[in-house]
C-alpha cells in the first residue's frame, strides 16, 4: 500500500488526521515577546491559517510546533499527547518552508525520497513513492531534475511532496507561496488545498496574506503581539470580527466618526445604527467601523456638500468588475470607501455631491482617542 492510495482509504474508514493543540505558549527573544500566551486548537483534518502582521509571532508558533524552537512556557500536543520534550526529528510533522529548502545536490525524486531513506525504505520503493507523490503535486516525470533546474513554483511542489512522503501527522506550511509570482501563487493555493483535503491531514499554515488565508483555510487564526485575537471561519471573521483589530486587519474597513446615543445605539452619518459587541457610555465620541459593501450612497444637494454630517464629494472611482469602489471625502476630511454595483456607481461621477447611507445592520465601534 502506498502513501497515496492509503490516505483516502483511511478517510473512508473514518480516521481523519489528528488533533493538534497549542496551549499557553510563551516565547521571548531578549526583550521581545514573540509569543505571550498563545492558544490554538486544530480539529482533525482541519486547515487553520495563522494570519497577522509581521512580528506577531506566527512563525515562532509554527517553529515551536515543528520542534525547531522551544517554548519558554506552554505545550504542544497531538491527540492529547504532549510533544514538547520531543526533538524535531521525532515529531512526524511535514514542513514546507518559504523557499530554498530543497537539498541542492539531490534530484527532485531524491529529495522526496529523503525521509523514507532515513526510515530505511528500499531504494525501489522510494523511487515508486516519489514518482507517485510527484505526480500528485503535478510534477510527473520530473523526478530526475535538480532544484536549480526547477522554477520557484515547481520547487515548492517538490517540497510539498517531500513533506508528504514521511506520512506526517501534521502538515506545517511556513508562507510557502510568498516567494512566488502572483499567478503561480493562485494556482498552487488551490492545489495545496485539494491535496490537503484529499489526505485529510491536519494543517497549520502561516501567512501574512489575508486573501490567501481567507480563501484556503477552514478557520483563520488572527494573531497580534504574540496572542490569538480571534480564530473563526473566514466568513465569520469577515462579518463578525471579535475585536476592532481583527475588523481592521481583515478586509477593508471604513472608520466613520459617530456618537453613542443610547443603549447600544450609535449615530453615524445622520442615521442611528445598533451596536454589536462592547458599547461605550452614551455621548462618547466613537469611530464606527463599516465595510465598503455595507455603505450605500444617495445624491445630495450641491449646496450642503461641505456642511452636514455624512455628506461629501466623490473623489475617486475604482472599477473592480461587478462593483465599483467610490472614495468619498466627507466635510470633516475623513475618507470613506463605498462599494456599489457598477451600474449604480455611474450615477455618482467623480466630483458629485453624495450622502453616505450605511446599511441598517449592527456595527462595531471603537472609542476615539
Amino acid at each position, binding site marked *: 500500500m502506498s502513501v497515496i492510495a492509503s490516505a483516502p482509504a483511511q478517510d473512508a474508514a473514518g480516521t481523519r488526521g489528528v488533533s493538534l493543540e497549542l496551549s499557553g505558549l510563551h516565547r521571548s527573544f531578549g526583550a521581545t515577546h514573540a509569543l505571550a500566551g498563545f492558544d490554538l486548537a486544530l480539529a482533525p483534518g482541519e486547515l487553520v491559517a495563522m494570519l497577522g502582521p509581521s512580528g506577531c509571532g506566527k512563525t515562532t508558533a509554527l517553529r515551536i510546533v515543528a520542534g525547531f524552537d522551544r517554548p519558554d512556557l506552554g505545550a504542544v500536543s497531538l491527540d492529547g499527547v504532549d510533544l514538547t520534550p520531543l526533538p524535531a526529528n521525532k515529531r512526524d510533522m511535514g514542513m514546507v518552508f518559504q523557499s530554498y*529548502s530543497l537539498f541542492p545536490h539531490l534530484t527532485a525524486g531524491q529529495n522526496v525520497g529523503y525521509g523514507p531513506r*532515513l526510515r530505511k525504505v528500499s531504494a525501489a520503493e522510494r523511487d515508486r513513492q516519489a514518482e507517485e507523490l510527484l505526480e500528485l503535486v503535478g510534477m510527473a516525470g520530473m523526478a530526475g531534475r535538480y532544484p536549480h533546474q526547477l522554477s520557484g513554483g515547481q520547487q515548492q511542489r517538490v517540497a510539498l511532496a517531500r513533506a508528504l512522503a514521511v506520512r506526517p501527522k501534521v502538515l506545517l506550511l511556513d508562507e510557502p507561496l510568498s516567494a512566488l509570482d502572483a499567478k503561480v501563487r493562485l494556482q498552487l493555493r488551490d492545489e495545496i488545498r485539494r491535496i490537503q483535503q484529499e489526505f485529510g491531514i491536519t494543517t497549520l499554515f502561516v501567512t501574512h496574506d489575508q486573501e490567501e488565508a481567507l480563501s484556503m483555510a477552514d478557520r483563520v487564526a488572527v494573531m497580534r503581539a504574540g496572542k490569538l485575537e480571534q480564530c473563526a471561519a473566514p466568513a465569520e471573521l469577515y462579518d463578525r470580527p471579535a475585536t476592532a483589530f481583527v475588523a481592521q486587519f481583515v478586509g477593508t474597513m471604513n472608520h466613520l466618526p459617530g456618537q453613542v446615543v443610547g443603549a447600544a445605539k450609535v449615530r453615524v452619518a445622520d442615521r442611528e445604527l445598533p451596536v454589536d459587541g462592547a458599547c461605550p457610555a452614551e455621548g462618547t465620541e466613537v469611530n464606527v467601523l463599516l465595510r465598503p459593501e455595507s455603505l450605500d450612497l444617495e445624491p445630495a444637494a450641491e449646496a450642503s456638500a461641505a456642511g452636514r454630517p455624512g455628506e461629501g464629494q466623490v473623489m475617486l472611482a475604482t472599477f473592480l468588475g461587478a462593483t465599483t469602489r467610490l472614495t468619498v471625502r466627507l466635510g470633516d476630511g475623513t475618507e470613506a470607501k463605498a462599494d456599489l454595483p457598477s451600474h449604480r456607481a455611474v450615477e455618482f461621477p467623480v466630483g458629485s455631491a453624495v450622502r453616505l447611507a450605511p446599511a441598517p445592520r449592527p456595527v462595531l465601534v471603537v472609542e476615539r482617542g
Partner: protein
Amino acid sequence: MTRLFTKLGAWGAVLPLLGYCAIALGFPVWAILWEGLHQTNPTTQQTTVTFANLTASWHGIYLTGLLTSLRLSLLSSVISAVVGLFAAYAISQSRGRYFKQAVLTASGVLANFGGIPLAFCFIATIGTGGVFLSWIQNVWPSFSLETFSGVALVYPYFLVPLMVLTTLPALDGLREQWKEASANLGGTSRQYWRHVGGPLLLPAALGGFVLCFGSAFAAYATAKALTSGTVPLVTTQIANILSGNVIAGEDNLGMALAFNTIIICGLMMAVYLPLRKRSAKWLES
C-alpha cells in the same frame, strides 16, 4: 546590431586582462617548458630537443627534493585543511559581526603572509634563542625549526587562513532550512551531516585542500629563510641552481625542475576547478 556592439564592447573590456595573463603568465611558463625540453651544446651552439633534463630532475637529490616537497605539502595541507574547515565552520556559526569581520580580514592578510616575515616571526618564537623554544623542547626534545617538522609547523600559518578564505563562502551558503528540513523529515544531526551537509561541503573542502597543497608546494621564501636549504625542497633547489651553485652544463636542469612544479600546479588546478564549479552551483546561487 547594438547587441553585437555591446558584446564586442564587453569582449574589449575582458581581452586586455586575458592578453596580459597570456604574456606575463603564459610566456614565462612556455619559456620553461621550451627550455626544459631543449639542450644547447656548449661547443657547437646547437640546440636540440632532449628529455635528459627532465630525466635528471627525477633522479638523485632532485627526486629527494621532489618527494620531500610533496611530503611536506601533503602533511601541512592535510593539517591545515582539517583545522581550517573546523575554524571556518566555527566562524560561520558566530553571530558577532566584528569578530567575523576581524577574522576574515586577518585571514586575508595572513594567507598573504608567507615568505620572509613569517619566518622571522617563528624564528623569534621557537627558533634558536626563541622565546618559547625551551617550552616546545620540553615536550618534543629533538624539535628544531630548521627541520622538516619545523617547516611543517610553520606552513599552516598561511595555509589555515587560505583554507578559511576558500571554504567560508560555501559554509555561509549552507542554509539553516536544510538542517531544519532534514530534522523535520526525521533526520538526526549526524544524518544531516552524512547525507546533506557533508556532501554539500565536500567539493569546497577538497578544493580548499588542493589549493593549500599547491600553495605549500609553491612556497619558497619561508622554507629558505627557516632552513637555509638543509631541507631539500624543489623550490629551494631551483633557486640554488639559478644562483649558480651548480655544475656547468646543467643550466637547463633548473628549467626541468620548474617544469615539474608547473605540472604539479596544472594537476592541482585540474582537480580544483571542477570541484569549485560544483560547489558554486550548490551553495552560492
